[in-house]
């Protein structure tokens, strides 16, 4: 796990330093002398060997210092922490939608198994699974941004609102403060990007959960529940769901990391002020320390999620529980 992080750090480090384009030359006004360039290069430590640079960078990073952004002239850690909450809120909202939508269609499909509605669910899943978040986002922009303009197609929150927030977790804080006007405005901005991220994941959850449910519904305890007079929906929600959900859970972990990876382009598409949107700007501006910080943040996040899923799996699976 730590090895993976170090691997990611090395790959990014080498990649962005062999990149053509000199960030120092971009910082200085035209007409700067060679001496100016050399001085600034030395200031950012870019005159040392690649290996030396990496050791210095890694040493600082271990102490929480990821350097300063070249274009924005602020500490990378501040910039990342400023944007990360926006991306986390978007990803979590998307995950919530995916689980709700995928769960509901799975239960519906399992209840109607072998009949036409199940084929409908399969078709829906097949299509939503094949189309990536980027295209869903564009389609939603056309539908709910232009054709029937009910949602905002860019930004995180309307610029004319005054925000009382103490943290960058806008949606979370707005809910806690019971400011429903702000919640509505935030959701009107976040719903489309979240839905585009959620649709492919919803299809995966639906497929897997439906399969699991269908298998569990053949087992004795499901039959017994039916004999005791439970309706099919009750059998599914009260008895089958818990047991069928476990294999789905491990899969959600990996898929959630894919979803977070998707925020990069979806945030760009909706001009949402998150980490991914900033990452694209950082790459275009050759902002080496910022790119490095953002990529490592994503990698760390992915690793944490996988760890959390492993833990959750152990907690939820009675066979892996200790005494």
């Amino acid at each position, binding site marked *: 796990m730590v090895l993976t992080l170090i691997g990611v750090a090395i790959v990014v480090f080498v990649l962005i330093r062999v990149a053509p384009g000199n960030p120092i030359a971009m910082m200085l006004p035209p007409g700067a002398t060679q001496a100016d360039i050399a001085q600034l290069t030395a200031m950012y430590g870019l005159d040392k060997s690649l290996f030396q640079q990496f050791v210095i960078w890694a040493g600082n990073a271990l102490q929480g210092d990821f350097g300063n952004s070249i274009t924005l002239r602020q500490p990378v850690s501040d910039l990342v922490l400023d944007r990360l909450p926006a991306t986390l809120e978007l990803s979590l909202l998307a995950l919530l939608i995916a689980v709700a939508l995928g769960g509901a269609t799975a239960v519906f499909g399992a209840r109607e198994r072998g009949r036409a509605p199940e084929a409908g669910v399969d078709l829906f899943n097949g299509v939503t699974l094949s189309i990536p978040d980027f*295209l869903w986002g564009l*389609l939603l922009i*056309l539908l709910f941004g232009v054709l029937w303009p009910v949602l905002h197609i860019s930004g995180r929150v309307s610029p004319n609102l005054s925000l009382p927030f103490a943290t960058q977790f806008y949606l979370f804080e707005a809910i806690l403060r019971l400011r429903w006007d702000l919640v509505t405005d935030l959701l009107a901005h976040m719903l489309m990007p979240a839905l585009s991220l959620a649709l492919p994941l919803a299809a995966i959850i639906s497929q897997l959960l439906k399969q699991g449910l269908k298998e569990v519904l053949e087992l004795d305890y499901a039959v017994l529940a039916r004999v005791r007079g439970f309706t099919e929906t009750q059998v599914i929600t009260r008895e089958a769901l818990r047991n069928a959900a476990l294999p789905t859970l491990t899969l959600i972990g990996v898929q959630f990391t894919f979803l977070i990876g998707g925020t990069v382009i979806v945030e760009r598409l909706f001009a949402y002020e998150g980490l991914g949107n900033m990452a*694209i700007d950082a*790459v*275009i501006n050759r902002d080496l320390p910022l790119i490095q910080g953002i990529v490592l943040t994503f990698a760390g996040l992915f690793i944490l999620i996988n760890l959390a899923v492993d833990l959750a799996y152990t907690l939820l699976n009675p066979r892996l529980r200790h005494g």
Partner: protein
Amino acid sequence: MAEATLPGPHTQPRARARRRNPRLWLSAAWLLLVALAAILAPFIAPHDPLTQDLLLERLPPLGLSGAEPGYLLGTDSLGRDVLSRLIYGARIALTVALVAASAACLAGSALGLLAGYFGGWVDRIVSRLVDVWMAFPPVLFSILLVAVLGTGLTSVILAIAIIDWTRFARVVRAETLVQSRMDYVHSARIGGASRLAILAGEVLPNVLPTIVALLALEMGVAVIVEAILSFVNLSISSDSPTWGGMIAEGRASIHFSWWVLAAPLVVLFLTVLAFSQLGEGLKARFDPLLR
């Protein structure tokens, strides 16, 4: 002989497979249409895709008021014909799909086969590399790579291959692990075949259906990645029309001319859907359990 004597379990899945085929043929037909458009672009495109005409800017598609005959799908903000740009855009989309996906397929499958068959340190290195690669958000990784390699068709293709080989390596490795424990591999080994001969002659043919299905899927992914790179203005130069470039333009002028976004979106939608359905269809067709 066995097939003739065992009608039940053999004919039923086959009939089912055939009924599932429409999506395979529909997908193939759409992709053939796109391929024909790409090849015949200079002959079938009604206009030059690059000619700007400010007198004809933002013409709506035929059927809407203000439309101009001869501009079936309307024009963009510079007066360029949307249909012609779509037709020419198919060239880059398909080139990227074919070349990038094949390159990713070759590299990834080779590494997956070696890792799955030989195990040991080969497997450890490949698996570790895959882990590191998977810890990158792929879109960010591709943007980073194109920034490093410089824009242009070759860079886009290279970037896609460098990122997506893991998709093949992961699946092929797992499949090879399963296959190399099969009896036929053991009997080939007892028969005195060399390890490489077994890998190429026995294991590969059995992993191939999986690879082919993945390849079709990957072509759809490559088309999307190219569109995304064009969208952030990092793909091919603006002289050659691309679907992603059209989408970027359409997104920017969405409140004035929605069709500039809608046209490439529909084409991308159908193409990606066709590639993935082709992959699924091929998988079902090759699967010995369904045959």
